[in-house]
C-alpha cells in the first residue's frame, strides 16, 4: 500500500524550494500513525504546499525500505534539497524535526 500525497496549494507563499520527503511506516502501528499525524501538522504549519511526501508502508515494501537504508519505523527521509537527512521516531519532537529538515527559517 503505497500512498502518495502531493499537496500543492493555489496560493503558494514566497518559499520556492520544494522539500521532497519519504515517510516509512509500519502500516497502522501506533508510532507510525502518530508519525503521519505529526508530520502532517508540521508540513501544514511550516511548508504549506511546498513539499512532496511519499509514504511507504514497509510491511508491504520491505525490500524497497532495505534498499533505501531504512531499518526502524517510523523513519522520515529528506531526499531534497540537499543535505539529505534522516529522522527516526514518531516525530513528536517537532523542534528537532524542523531543524533536521532545514526548514527552521520558515518559522514565523
Amino acid at each position: 500500500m503505497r500512498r502518495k500525497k502531493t499537496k500543492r496549494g493555489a496560493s503558494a507563499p514566497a518559499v520556492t524550494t520544494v522539500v521532497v520527503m519519504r515517510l516509512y511506516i509500519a502500516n497502522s502501528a501506533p508510532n507510525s500513525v502518530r508519525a503521519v499525524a505529526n508530520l502532517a501538522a508540521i508540513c501544514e504549519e511550516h511548508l504549506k504546499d511546498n513539499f512532496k511526501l511519499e509514504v511507504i508502508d514497509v510491511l508491504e515494501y520491505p525490500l524497497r525500505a532495505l534498499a533505501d537504508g531504512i531499518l526502524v519505523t517510523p523513519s522520515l527521509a529528506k531526499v531534497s534539497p540537499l543535505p539529505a537527512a534522516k529522522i527516526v521516531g514518531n516525530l513528536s519532537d517537532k523542534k528537532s524535526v524542523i531543524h533536521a529538515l532545514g526548514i527552521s527559517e520558515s518559522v514565523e
Partner: protein
Amino acid sequence: MKGVTVNATKSAALQPLPKIATGIPGFDELSHGGLPRNRTTLLRGGPGSGKTVFALQSLVNAARRRQEPGIFVAFEESTRQIVANAASFDWRLSALARHQLFFLDAKLSPEVVQSGEFDLSGMLAILKAKKEEIGAKWIVFDGIDVLLTLLQNPIAEMREIYRIRDWLTENEVNAAIITAKIDGDGSAVVNYGFMQFMVDCVIRFERRIEHGVALHRLQITKYRGSDFVAGEFPVSFGPAGMEVDAPEPAEIRQVASSERISAGFERLDTMLGGGLFRGSSTLITGVPGTSKTTLAGKFVEAACRRGERTLFVSFDESADRIARNLTSVGIKLKPCIKTGLLRMYSGRTETIGAEDQLVKLKALIREHRPRCMVIDPISAIAKSGGLAAARAVANRFIYLAKDEKITVMVTAINEGDEPETEATDLQISTIADTWIHLSYLIRSGERNRALTIIKSRGTWHSNQVRELVLSDAGPMLADVYTAGGEVLMGTLRWEKEDEERTKKLQRRAEFDHKRGELQVAEADTRARIKALELDLERQRNELAKYSSGNEARIVSSSDREKEMRRIRSADPAGRAASGLAPSLAKRGASVRSGNSGRKNRNDAHDAP
C-alpha cells in the same frame, strides 16, 4: 497454528530436545548437541568477550557445512567492521556474504536524528522479506542492547523484545541467536529478567584479565529442557575461530601399549627396564642447567632415527638455537628437520594465556601428526596467566597426547633441588607415567649432574642415582661406583675409576708374569718329553732287534726240552707244564731279553 505449537511442545516433552550443532569445537560437546533447534539463544557478556565471534562462527559453519543460509543483524558494528574483524579467521566471510549470508547493517548512523519513539516492526518486515528471499535458516541479532538503549524507555524496550520474540515464533528458523552486552549478573539491565525468560538457552561469556593476560570463559547458565555441563570453560581463539575447551569425557578410554621405545640412549633404557612405553608420558624435572633439554633432544633424535614423525615444542628459545646447542653434545636434529620428520616450534609465553598455547599445540598436532613429542619446558606455560589455568592446560595436554597415542616427554623447571617441590608447580608429576629427576649433587667441592628415576608406571626401573655425563658423543650415564653406600660422581668417580684401572693393570701384569712362568715351565716339560721320546724310540728299535733273536733261542730251547724228556722217558705230568709253556716262555723271554727291570716295565706299560 496454535494447535501445531501445542503438539510441538508435547512431543518436545516426550523426546529429547532437538538441537542443532554450532560446529564450534568443544561447545557442541558441552551442550550435548548444540543450540536448541527452532528456539532462541541469548549470548550475554561484556565487550570483547567473544559473543559476536560465537554467533558469527555458528552462522558460517551452518552456511558452509549444511548450506543453511543465515542473516546477521548488526546493531553495534557496521557490516564492514564485522567482516574486517573476522578476517583474522580463515572463514572467507566475504565470499560467503555474497550468497549464503546476509548482513543487515542495523547500526543507526550518528547523523540520524531521533524524534520520539520508534519500533522494530519495519525492520522485522525487512528481515522477513530477506529471510524468504535467501531461505535463511539462522538469524543473529548482534548487540541488541545498543538498539534497546536507543529506545530510551524500559516499557518500549520490553515491547520491542516481545516483538522480536513474536517474530521469531512466526518466522521459524533453525536457530536464533541474540547477543547482548550484559555484564555481571545482569541487574543493571532493566529487562534482562524478561530477556532471559523469553529465550531457551543463555550462554554467558566473560573476558577477564589475570596476571596481565586476557582469559576468555564461557558458561551455559540456562538450557530449557536439556541437561548440559555446567561450570565455566576456557575459550580460546585460533585461526579457525573460537574453540571451547570442553572437559574430557569422564571415562578414560586410552589403550595401553606394551611396545617399548627408546628414551634416547641405551643405558637410560636399561634403567627404565627396557625403555618407555609407546604412548606414555614422561616428565623430566630439574633446576636450570641439569640438561633436561639434552635428554629431550636425545629422545627426539632417537624417534627420528626410527623414522617417526616428531614434534619439538620449545618456549622462549628459538628452535634454531636449540638445534645448535644440541649439536655440541652430539645430537643432530637439523637433518631430521630437513627430511620433514621433525617439526620444531618455538613459542612465546609472554602475554599468551595457557589456553591459547593449548589451542596452538592442538593445531600443531593436527598439522604434523607426530608419534613422539617434546615440550620444553612445559612449566613455561605457567609464566603468564594464572597458575590454575596453566595447571589445567598441562594436565589436559597430557591427556590429549594420550588420546592421540603420542609418546610425550615434557620438561619442567623446579625451583629447589628436591624433586618434591615440583609438586607445588604444575602438578603433572601425578599424571605422568615416568618421572625422571635431574639434579646437581655437590660433594667434595664439585657439582655433578645426577639422574634419578622417581617413578615409572608399569615397569621395573632402576632406583639408583646415576651420574649423567655430557660429551660430544651425547649424554651418557656413567658406570656405577659406590663407596660407603653412595654413588660416586665426578672426580670421586674418576678417582675410583682410576683406582680400578690401576688395579686392573696390576692384575694384568701379575697375570702376564704368571703366564710367562707357566710358559717357561711348559717349554721345559716339553723339552724333557722330547728327550724321553727319543730315548723311547731308540729303545723300541733295540727291542725289535732283540726280540727276533730271542724267538729263535726259545724255539731251540723247547726242542731241547722235548729231546731231554724223550731221553728221560718222562711222565705225562710234564704235559701240563708244556701247556703253559708258551706264555711262560714269552714272559721268560721278555724278562730275559731286558737288560734292566726298569726298561721292561716301560715296555709292558706300552703294550696295552
